[in-house]
């Protein structure tokens, strides 16, 4: 009996908190995505030739855990098959957040674009339940004001700094 109560309690707590955190996260993602509209992340590997750019590797990463309710529903869906929507939104959040953090790093370097953006997802095992890690990285193209002086003081490579 106590087991059942504990289980239901975990489900309810997971549902309420999980939903609240997700809503809040999406709100902040949408807000920041608008802010970073001026800094496009592009998946092409050929750099722009319109002016002289310095290159700098930038990255952004995030680890997101699923909540108890999501894990339970995903387990249920697993029995019948079909779209595992609870995890889809979690992955979407992770990817968008990682891209935003990468752009934030790029902006700190006064970059115009981020080229050759790569996204990578991996499962981080935390005991029984799951969490995912998303990493976004790319090359920030920083316009060099003076090409000669830019050549002399190459940026020290600190990706993700």
């Amino acid at each position, binding site marked *: 009996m106590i087991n059942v109560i504990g289980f239901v309690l975990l489900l309810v707590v997971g549902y309420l908190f999980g939903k609240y955190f997700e809503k809040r996260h999406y709100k902040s993602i949408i807000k920041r995505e608008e802010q970073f509209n001026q800094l496009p992340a592009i998946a092409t590997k050929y750099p722009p030739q319109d002016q002289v750019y310095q290159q700098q590797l930038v990255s952004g990463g995030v680890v997101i855990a699923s909540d108890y309710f999501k894990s339970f529903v995903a387990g249920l869906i697993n029995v019948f098959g079909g779209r595992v929507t609870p995890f889809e939104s979690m992955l979407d959040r992770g990817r968008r957040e990682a891209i935003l953090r990468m752009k934030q790093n790029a902006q700190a370097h006064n970059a115009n674009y981020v080229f050759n953006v790569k996204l990578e997802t991996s499962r981080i095992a*935390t*005991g029984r339940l799951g969490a995912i890690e998303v990493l976004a990285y790319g090359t920030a193209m920083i316009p060099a004001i003076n090409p000669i002086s830019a050549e002399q003081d190459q940026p020290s490579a600190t990706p993700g700094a």
Partner: protein
Amino acid sequence: MLISNLEILPNHRIVRHLGLVQGSSVRSKHVGRDIMASLKNIFGGELLGYTELLQESREEATERLLAQAQKIGANAVLNVRYSTSSIAAGAAEIFVYGTAVEIVADD
């Protein structure tokens, strides 16, 4: 040392290819963090401790990559790729690799 995940550097010439260089780092957090993380698994949301951990690992792996590149006389590493794999509960490996080259600026 220039590090980039592009294959082309505008206004530069690659004068020498020095082969593949790599760096890796396996890290784990202390048990307290793991317990906090499993609690967080009830509520959902970001695991800040792990985000930090992986960030540190990535920096360390990149440093090792750069050290290796420096040793063989490169001044740039191009086409850099990252990969993460979870090895055991609470430990993750970050692997970074790229091509070490020697570049000179075009006049």
